[in-house]
């Protein structure tokens, strides 16, 4: 198929159009135009599906890509040429990502039409949702870091609006502000990195950057004393950390659940947070060149483990899910760090599916029970059978139970981490990475099943809390009073999206081959389509690349895929020297993670079903306290850094500016005048009267004669002055 404007633009544009229409006359449309938004996303899903089909089933080579550009604006004058190009860059990863984003987003839209019904913010919600999706799609499509940054920021704006959509809640405001500013911290660094790259290479196209890496342009370049590659890679990764909520900048994501649940689903699963992983995958060669993969791995591992620990004590369903997102993102980043490129990407995709499903299920629960505190739920199994089914499937997936997607992707990351930490002869300290990774895997299984058990099993506790009505507000802000939980029926808008997503939690979708055999194999297959199609960019291939204008027709040959050419691409050492070590690492990793996962599930079972083991919360109150206030990051950032540090500094500066600088220095000029005036007056009064009239002290002895003469009135002092001045004139004639 041809890749023309007509075949690519709709993916991005149709949601934009929906956004514009809804923004201006959404209120006039029936159902405030939610159907329009959903439809627009569906259109872009169709177009993405075409591309996906073309790339995946059309058997393109791994290194085939479409790259078309057009000029946005230029600053050309006499001799100088400076163009800002926009364009699309489509390869296998893009195709897969497009399908995932548009698909998941479509299902979320569909669900939202049910969830947001009769919600006061229904209209506004469906203004931002399509814009959000379109920004993500544009980000995935874009061929250079600059346009990526643009969509990146627009997504930030959308998340700001979605999180703060319940604007009469003070907390919503705080959460949205926090989300925007925290990500902004990363963003400015990303911008800095982009600027640096742009001014160094003259372009920020992926292909140009790859080519420059291949040609070794970065060699020996330094900026501010550190290697240029490291500088830019670090800046870009800081941006990624902000967006996908990695360890120091993770604080915004848990609060992001202030928004409506489907919005959280979109933020957590398909769009926002995955952008960070996406850009660090795209810039992977730069990360390697800049030699910061170890840093990435450590950050990822810390996030994965820390978030998992916090998740174990959360009581709010959405909070648990939020922290699980954090920890899964940690896995992805860790995967990038340890160089399991395509596993990281696969985890991105799988996680997107099951996390979306989980959030939607949570939404379905909250919407039908008006309660999201797990201790007040329970036994919902019989009320919400479909939700329960979907959620269970996803929980199995995320917990890493075999035959489910989460297992496939996660255990590959863990395997590579194992190899990276212990066998690749890296710095032994890096062994922390796989250790934390495995620990987090166990915790994940534990807290996910804890959530499942508390929510769907045991006896129903929803009625207890309605008796003593301590006003607990749910996401909609109105009192949760005990109306009867109606049984869930199969509804195309409520739970069919869940079920569809649940289908994709099965492992074989991702680990099968294109030809269909070895669907049974759960790991280690050499010819899985995912592994074959997705591999870290081999920069040498981009050296002699000519970018094409949209007008030109794509003439490149579609080469058939030869499996023989496939080699397992890892980050650190090109073609891997010791394949078998890696293979054994994977085997060990897989087995270990299976056991760990089951251990976690069993522990949760003992605690919350059988109750034979008391929850450890009571046993280790100190640790629980620490975990419950999330290692005190919020307190540290808000109270210490911002309130005390930043605001203190600002107040001080402002006070200096107006209180000191302005008053004493600037107005001081007028003051100086006044002083001069005073001195002139002093000259007339003090000198004349004091010295003139009753001169005493030193002055007397000095001008004894003069004073005896002067000690008359004022006019005579004028005479004195006259004569003295005359004398001084004469004196100046240097006689």
């Amino acid at each position: 198929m041809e890749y023309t404007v007509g075949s690519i633009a709709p993916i991005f544009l149709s949601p934009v159009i929906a956004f514009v229409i809804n923004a201006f006359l959404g209120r006039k449309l029936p159902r405030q135009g939610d159907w329009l938004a959903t439809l627009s996303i569906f259109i872009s899903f169709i177009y993405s599906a075409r591309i996906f089909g073309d790339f995946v089933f059309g058997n393109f080579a791994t290194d085939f890509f479409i790259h078309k550009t057009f000029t946005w604006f230029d600053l050309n004058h006499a001799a100088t040429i400076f163009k800002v190009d926009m364009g699309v860059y489509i390869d296998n990863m893009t195709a897969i990502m497009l399908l995932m984003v548009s698909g998941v987003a479509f299902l979320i839209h569909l669900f939202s039409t049910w969830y947001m019904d009769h919600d006061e913010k229904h209209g506004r919600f469906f203004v931002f949702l399509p814009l959000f999706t379109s920004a993500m799609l544009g980000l995935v499509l874009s061929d250079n870091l600059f346009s990526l940054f643009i969509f990146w920021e627009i997504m930030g704006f959308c998340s700001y609006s979605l999180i703060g959509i319940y604007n009469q809640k003070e907390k919503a405001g705080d959460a949205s502000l926090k989300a925007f500013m925290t990500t902004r911290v990363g963003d400015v660094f990303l911008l800095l990195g982009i600027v640096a790259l742009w001014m160094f290479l003259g372009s920020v196209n992926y292909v140009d950057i790859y080519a420059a890496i291949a040609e070794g342009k970065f060699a020996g370049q330094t900026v501010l004393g550190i290697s240029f590659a490291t500088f830019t890679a670090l800046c870009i990764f800081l941006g990624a950390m902000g967006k996908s909520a990695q360890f120091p900048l993770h604080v915004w994501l848990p609060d992001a659940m202030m928004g409506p649940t489907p919005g959280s689903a979109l933020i957590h699963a398909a769009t926002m947070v995955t952008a960070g992983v996406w850009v660090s995958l795209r810039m992977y060669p730069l990360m390697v060149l800049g030699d910061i993969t170890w840093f990435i791995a450590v950050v990822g591992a810390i996030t994965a483990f820390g978030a998992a620990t916090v998740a174990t004590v959360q009581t709010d369903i959405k909070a648990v899910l939020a922290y699980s997102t954090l920890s899964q993102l940690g896995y992805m980043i860790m995967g990038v760090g340890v160089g399991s490129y395509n596993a990281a990407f696969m985890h991105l995709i799988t996680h997107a599916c099951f996390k979306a499903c989980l959030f939607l299920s949570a939404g379905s629960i909250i919407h039908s029970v008006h309660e999201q505190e797990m201790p007040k739920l329970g036994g919902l199994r019989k009320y919400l059978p479909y939700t329960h089914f979907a959620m269970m499937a996803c929980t199995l997936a995320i917990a890493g139970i075999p035959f489910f997607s989460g297992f496939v992707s996660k255990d590959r990351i863990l395997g590579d981490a194992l190899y990276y930490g212990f066998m690749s002869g890296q710095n032994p300290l890096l062994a922390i990475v796989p250790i934390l990774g495995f620990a987090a895997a166990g915790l994940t299984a534990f807290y996910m099943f804890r959530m499942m058990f508390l929510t769907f099993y045991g006896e129903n506790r929803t009625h207890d809390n309605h008796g003593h009505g301590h006003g607990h507000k749910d996401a909609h802000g109105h009192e949760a009073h005990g109306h009867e939980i109606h049984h869930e029926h199969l509804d195309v808008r409520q739970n069919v999206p869940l079920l569809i997503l649940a289908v994709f939690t099965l492992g074989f979708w991702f680990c099968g081959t294109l030809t269909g055999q070895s669907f049974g194999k759960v790991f280690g297959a050499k010819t899985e389509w995912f592994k074959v199609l997705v591999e870290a960019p081999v920069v040498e291939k981009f050296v002699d690349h000519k970018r094409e204008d949209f007008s030109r027709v794509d003439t490149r040959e579609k080469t058939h895929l030869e499996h023989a050419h496939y080699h397992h691409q890892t980050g650190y050492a090109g073609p891997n020297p010791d394949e078998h070590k890696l293979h054994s690492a994977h085997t060990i990793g897989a087995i270990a993670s299976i056991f760990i996962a089951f251990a976690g599930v069993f522990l949760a079972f003992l605690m919350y079903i059988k109750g034979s083991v008391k929850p450890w919360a009571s046993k280790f109150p100190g640790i629980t306290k620490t975990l419950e206030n999330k290692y005190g990051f919020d307190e540290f950032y808000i109270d210490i850094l911002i309130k005390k540090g930043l605001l203190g500094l600002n107040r001080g500066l402002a006070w200096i500016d107006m209180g000191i600088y302005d008053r004493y220095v600037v107005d001081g000029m007028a003051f100086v005048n006044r002083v001069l005036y005073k001195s002139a007056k002093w000259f007339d009064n003090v000198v004349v009267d004091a010295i003139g009239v009753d001169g005493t002290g030193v002055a007397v002895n000095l001008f004894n004669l003069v004073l005896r003469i002067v000690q008359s009135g004022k006019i005579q002092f004028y005479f004195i002055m006259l004569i003295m001045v005359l004398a001084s004139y004469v004196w100046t004639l240097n006689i």
Partner: protein
Amino acid sequence: MIQQLFGFLSYFIPEIICVVLMTTLLVAESTVKEEHGSRGKIIGYALAMLALCLLFLFQNLGEAPRFIFHNAITIDPFSTLIKIIMVLGTMGAIFLSYSSKDIYTNLKSEFAIMAVGVLLGGMLLASANNMLTLYLGIETLSILSYVMASFKRDESTSTEAGMKYALYGGLSAGVALYGISHLYGILGSIQFVDMVDKLPGLEGTNLLIVLVSFMFFFVGIGYKISVFPFHMWTPDVYQGSPIPVTSFFAIVPKMAGLAALIRVSFIFFNNNSALSISWTGLMLVISAMTMTVGNVTAIGQTSVKRLLAFSSIGHVGLMILGVVVLNEQGVRAILFYGIVYMFMTLIAFYITSHLSDMYGTDSYDVFKGLIYKHPTMAIIMAAVLFSLAGMPPFSGFVAKFNIFSVVIEKKLYGIAIVAAINSVIALYYYVKLAKTMIFGQADGDVKVLGFTSGNQAVIIALFIPVLFLGIFWEKVMIMSGNAVLFIK
């Protein structure tokens, strides 16, 4: 012989007119009974005569320079232009004296008599070509000024002002005269032209004596134009004397003194001898000090009259810069400045006078909220203040611009910076007054009686050149330029 004498006199007509006017006024003063309206008639007569004098002066403006009365007096366009300015100033002051309540109403025309006398002295000073005429001019100017200063006979302040003026003037005139006597001795003549010829040949003691004598001589002029440090009498006298007198002092004696200063500097120091260099340096220092002291002291004033007095000192300091550069452009700039300054000062004093007549004081408060009582007057006053501060599009800016340009042409950037800072200081107090008029709230909306339609008409008429010369100032510049060409 005779008609040759009359040929001389034909250029001397303006002065003669003044003499005639004086005498006739004296007669009228003693004879005409004080009944209704006679005062107005007398004043009108004086103004008419002065207008006539103005006519002749304009006639002389185009003429080539002449020396009459055996080189005692120069009639050249420069002196003529100065005279025009002075006559205009005198007319303005006399008109003000008519409506002002600050001087006794039972005096029919004494103010006019004195003013014309001072004007006569100023004319002599402006066109003096030898020491004698110059001294005569100074003394005529001074002695009558003493009387004018002590016009309010029963008020101690006025009398005291007059007395101080008299004593200080006497001393400085005497010192100047002593200097002149030595100059005469050394240079062997009282004719400027003959004295200059002797200058180059001097050496040793004689040169020294000449230098010292010139310093003495400068005291005489310096106190007339009240430059630092001979300005100290100025605020007292300005405060003590009635407002019409103050406005008169702010214009006529200053212009006359400047004229004398310019002429002397050009005749004696227009060469690069040691004499002229030390003279120029002296002038630089004096002008810097003068404008600084004038502006800085003006800031703290609460009486608008004193404020204007000090600001006049500041302006003189700026004008002297035109003397320092010792070239035609400089004098041209001074002349332009003088014309513009005359108009601005008159307006400012008019409005101040009428307000202080109304309220009996001339503090800032009487200006408060003027915009609500007399919008036109307030706007004109504000415009004049901005013009005095040197804001475009008013003529004050052009005057300042010319002075700056001649200074910078000589690459005297240091003094240029001093002048720049001074004009900021000046703006400060002018704006303070403008603020009081326009932002302040009026306490009671009593109409000021002084602003009769006639007075307002005069004020507007005086304002037109202030605005006009700020935009189309070429003609006047050319006129001043032509006046300068014959200076030597």
